[in-house]
């Protein structure tokens, strides 16, 4: 029988949660890499035994771990992320030039067709690729050397490249998102990049609210069957693009707040989308103390709250940008983790939720592997 493996990165280690296809009884393993911040773990879509993990601390820096046996054992691989050439400067919070400096890997995105190829989104914002299973990393410097690079400025969490979306229909096309620069797309495998932020508005944040770059994009997602449609949770606003990111329009609709971090698309329906509204950028918790996932069945605009099994009073946790994922079973399972250490699962497309675990360290990321 098929099953799922949920990969959870937290402030103090990684956890692996497994269940069979019913997704009712869970086995919890961990902490792995105890005491380290695990910003992200993700498995190869073509080899479920291959998993990469980003491991870091402020004391001892960055490591990348790799498992070739589904998370049973791990080995450190390469951890040298050297910017190509003289890195130059980007803008600091006060607008002064600030030297580009590597601090951590936020996101690891394994290739869609080669387990040994994996992309890393790092802070300060840059994209790296390894084609030897993580042993060595090379910067795709065309992104950082985009003409606007010197104008990029960090968001509150640092100037991070936090989202990497691969287009399954066009191997040379990839989207990335940077806080607080925006979305960029390459159509030539990473050599050249174009800002893809038309239609985004950042009122009160940017001198020109519709500037080409400078938008605080929190996450983007697409459905592999319809990769020209992208969904975005921006700092404020939930957005959609129907033309591969060339233009965006708002689909926040009736959400109680259009601020939030994650956004995810149903595994089998490109029009079904999930977000977790958060009250505001200064109050990083759900509106009214009620933890609600909102689901749209219409690609945005119209949203329904999903509350069964989720705390509906006195809940003041956050759900971070990489902390939501879907499995590929039928019905589609949906998962998310909170800064309060809960990992919630729904085996029925979000209709009902149960907590797999409740007391982990703050959850930074959640990914799901659907096992054969």
């Amino acid at each position, binding site marked *: 029988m098929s099953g799922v493996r949920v990969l959870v990165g937290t402030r103090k280690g990684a956890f692996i949660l497994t269940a069979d296809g019913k997704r009712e009884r869970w086995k919890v393993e961990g902490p792995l890499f105890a005491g*380290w911040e695990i910003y992200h773990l993700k498995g190869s879509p073509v080899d479920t035994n291959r998993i990469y993990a980003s491991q870091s601390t*402020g*004391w*001892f*820096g960055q*490591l990348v771990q790799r498992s070739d046996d589904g998370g049973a054992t791990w080995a450190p691989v390469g*951890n*040298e992320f*050297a910017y190509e050439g003289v890195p130059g400067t980007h803008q600091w919070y006060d607008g002064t030039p600030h030297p580009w400096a590597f601090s951590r890997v936020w996101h690891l995105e394994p290739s869609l067709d080669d387990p040994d190829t994996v992309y890393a989104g790092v802070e300060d914002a840059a994209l790296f690729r390894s084609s030897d299973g993580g042993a060595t990393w090379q910067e795709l410097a065309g992104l950082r050397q985009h003409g606007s690079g010197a104008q990029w400025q960090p968001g509150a969490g640092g100037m991070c490249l936090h989202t990497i979306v691969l287009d399954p229909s066009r191997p040379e096309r990839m989207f990335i998102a940077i806080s607080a620069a925006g979305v960029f797309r390459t159509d030539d495998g990473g050599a050249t990049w174009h800002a893809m932020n038309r239609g985004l508005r950042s009122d009160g944040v940017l001198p020109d609210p519709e500037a080409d770059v400078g938008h605080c994009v929190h996450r983007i997602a697409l459905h592999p069957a319809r990769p020209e449609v992208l969904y975005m949770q921006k700092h404020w606003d939930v957005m959609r693009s129907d033309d591969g990111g060339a233009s965006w329009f708002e689909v926040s609709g009736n959400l109680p707040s259009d601020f939030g971090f994650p956004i995810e698309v149903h595994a089998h329906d490109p029009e079904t989308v999930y977000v977790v509204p958060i009250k505001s950028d200064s109050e990083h918790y759900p509106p009214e103390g009620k933890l609600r996932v909102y689901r749209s069945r219409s690609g945005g605009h119209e949203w329904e709250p999903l509350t069964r099994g989720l705390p509906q009073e006195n809940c003041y946790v956050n759900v971070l940008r990489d902390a939501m994922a879907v499995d590929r079973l039928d019905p589609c399972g949906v998962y998310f983790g909170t800064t309060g250490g809960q990992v919630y699962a729904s085996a029925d497309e979000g209709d009902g939720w149960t907590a797999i675990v409740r007391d982990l360290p703050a959850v930074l990321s959640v990914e799901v592997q659907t096992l054969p």
Partner: protein
Amino acid sequence: MSGGGRGPERAVPPSARNSETPGETSTVRIALPEHLRTLAQVDRELELDVHGPVTVMAVLDVLEREHPVLRGTILQHDTRRRRPFVRFFAVGRDLSHAPLEAELPEAVVSGLEPLVVIGAIAGG
């Protein structure tokens, strides 16, 4: 973790004074913090054979050669400087701000005392 010794530097027997001759090899003890011991898959102090002058940099060069997983965790990859929240102690002294190329105290050179690497108390 094995301590770095807070007392005065110990007397060193003449036979142990082997760093003064260029090219000689010293067996140096190094104590790592728990996270780095876990990475290196060691559960106690290490002994490293350091050729020539015994400096922090020379000791770390040998450490990284024998345990490549530690590259980038103590010294930064690009600058080869100490990571900000890493500290070096020996014979009860904080050597963190001394040049990495400065020769270590004789008690460390002779193996009587370890070079202690610690994660600074920071961040709550």
